[in-house]
């Protein structure tokens, strides 16, 4: 590394850097990312206009990172997907384009950023900074880059994080030609807002978090535009409505040998909604090296609750996740995950299965299946009954 840098300094600083007139052109970028090909197969005929049984798409994501001066750092994370059928799913995004300055006891982050808060497996109620890139899939891990100015105060016991969020990202939804989706496509081009500032509303957030022995604790406050829209129906077309709200929340995890106890809770208030509390609470227990096979099995159970009951705009008003995680601990890092979320009131089920395996040092194969069952009576999930699908993804990693 040192030699490379020396050569770089000697030769390139004079030539390349002078040409580019960028003083730091020789600094090295680190990068990671993937290019993935995805095939989805739908087992039933759609009850809407998108009738394809198969869909293919190509996606790519990368993270480039480099130092800027002694204490600075720049991260650039582009993403794209090209989808065979759905124009809404064909999209690009900058997940991150963020500059960080690290002081002795503080840190400043400015730009488009990605932040994760929470501890739960089924639904991270407290994870509110970024909008979901929902057209990417059901998993909440797909997020759009959020404009932010963030100050982090580092303490011995943890940290205090303050956010100013200038600008709002609308949630992505499957378009008229996309699957899976409900009966009517959501008109994401004509989103409505409670605030006159619309997507230019400046939001604020603060979080305090830390670890005390086996406890990890976090608490947050958020004021601004809800990341989850309500659906309104002007001219009978489902259209997102982004309301203003204030939210407080906590997240707690206790790590007790093989037991992980996890809870997230929020209380949300706003003029356009019923003030309400939501909770996700449960555990994960791991069996290591089952029957001397080297296989680990984890059991996850979480209860999801919304105190509005039937009036809730979310699907998780009184639901239970039961999940199993299998890790073979083999050379290919083979893993599998089975999960079922059951509505304890209505009986609707969502079953998901996921399995992945490294194929060579650079490739990985991932299978996913999602089935909605017994959902006829559920206003939201009932629309997805005919949308069961199997997905195969083959990724090249670098």
């Amino acid at each position, binding site marked *: 590394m040192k030699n490379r840098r020396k050569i770089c300094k000697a030769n390139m600083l004079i030539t390349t850097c002078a040409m580019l007139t960028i003083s730091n052109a020789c600094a090295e970028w680190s990068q*990671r990312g*993937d290019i993935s090909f995805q095939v989805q197969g739908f087992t039933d005929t759609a009850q809407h206009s998108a009738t394809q049984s198969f869909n293919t798409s190509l996606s790519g*994501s990368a*993270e480039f*990172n480099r130092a800027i001066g002694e204490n600075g750092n720049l991260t650039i994370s582009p993403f794209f997907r090209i989808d065979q059928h759905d124009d809404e799913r064909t999209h690009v995004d900058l997940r991150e384009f963020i500059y*960080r300055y690290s002081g002795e006891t503080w*840190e400043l982050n400015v730009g488009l950023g990605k*932040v*994760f808060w929470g501890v739960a*497996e*089924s*639904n991270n109620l407290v994870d509110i900074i970024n909008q979901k890139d929902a057209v990417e899939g*059901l*998993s*909440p*891990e797909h997020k759009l880059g959020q404009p932010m100015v963030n100050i*982090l105060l*580092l303490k011995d016991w943890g*940290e205090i994080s303050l956010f100013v969020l200038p600008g709002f990202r609308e949630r992505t939804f499957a378009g008229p030609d996309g699957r899976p989706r409900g009966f009517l496509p959501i008109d994401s081009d004509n989103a409505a807002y409670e605030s006159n500032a619309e997507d230019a509303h400046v939001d604020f957030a603060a979080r305090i978090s830390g*670890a005390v*022995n*086996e406890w990890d604790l976090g608490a947050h406050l958020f004021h601004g535009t809800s990341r989850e829209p309500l659906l309104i129906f002007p001219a009978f077309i489902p259209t997102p409505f982004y309301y203003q709200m204030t939210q407080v929340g906590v997240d707690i*995890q206790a*790590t007790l*040998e*093989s*037991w*992980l106890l996890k809870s997230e809770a929020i209380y949300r208030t706003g003029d356009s909604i019923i003030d309400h509390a939501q909770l996700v609470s449960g555990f994960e227990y*791991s069996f*290591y*090296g089952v029957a*001397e096979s*080297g296989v*680990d099995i*984890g059991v*996850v159970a979480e209860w999801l609750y919304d105190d509005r009951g039937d009036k809730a705009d979310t699907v998780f008003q009184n639901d239970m*996740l039961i*999940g199993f*995680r299998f*890790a073979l*601990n*083999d*050379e*290919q*890092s083979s*893993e599998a*995950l089975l*999960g079922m*979320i059951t509505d304890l009131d209505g009986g609707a089920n*969502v079953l*998901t299965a*996921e399995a*992945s395996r*490294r194929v060579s*040092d*650079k490739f990985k194969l991932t299978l996913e299946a*999602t089935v909605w069952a017994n959902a006829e009576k559920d206003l939201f999930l009932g629309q997805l009954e005919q949308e069961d699908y199997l997905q195969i993804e083959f*990724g090249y*990693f*670098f």
Partner: protein
Amino acid sequence: MRIQLANQFMYRMNNSKSTEKMMKSTWSTTLAVALLIGASPLAHAQTPEELGLAISTQVSDQNDGFADSTSNMTMTLINRSGKKSVRRMRARTLETANDGDKSLTIFDEPADVKGTASLTYSHALKPDEQWLFLPALKRVKRISSKNKTGAFMGSEFAFEDISSQEVDKYTYKHLGEEELNGIAVHKIESYPTDKYSGYTRLINYIDKERLIGLKVEFYDRKDKLLKVLTLNDYEHHDAKHWRPARMEMVNEQTGKSTILEFSNYAFGTGLTDKDFSSNALKKLR
């Protein structure tokens, strides 16, 4: 909706549980020490058990006082037909006053786990604390540190093999002295005290003169020979710290093996507690 897959395959990297007087060990001492017991001037009037303990304590003490260390690791997995696959990692360790080490491991290869990192605070009397950073999610996840017997990254090294060894984790018996490849060694048997260990006993071959481990034989729960570890290419860093540059673990039951190589060792590099925080974990590249 869906449970997020945690990349748990590597989450139990370094599980040191040093006590105050014990070594604060790095990754490789760790392995080195697994076998250690050394030449001893204390050999008078002792039972084989007392002698084993005395020597292992002495070997442990020898590894103290490096403040912090960094190194690069290359792990080569070789299956029965000779096919190889490679993992690359970077390790950082910090000695902590009156407590176990803090350690960080950053994964570089294979590419699908690039950027993943683990952080461990080891403790003498209470369970270790352990976090995993998943770069695609920007998520720092607290995980259980209880797994002992699991394979590290699919290799022949179990988590308990690569975790920091401490004298208290075993009881000992000095079996005798013999020659190994022309070097005079102590042959010492050790018995894990942890009921979750995958081994009934280990036989350690310790260089009498340098007080370093040269070979370990691991016996499984049925007391059959499971694995043999050899430690080679020792280097004497800063004239103080013995570290093997190459270790080979052969599974005698499956024929698979793993070679672990260390390079770019540095000691006393000025790392502090701040470099071992969960916020620091997010910033590693």
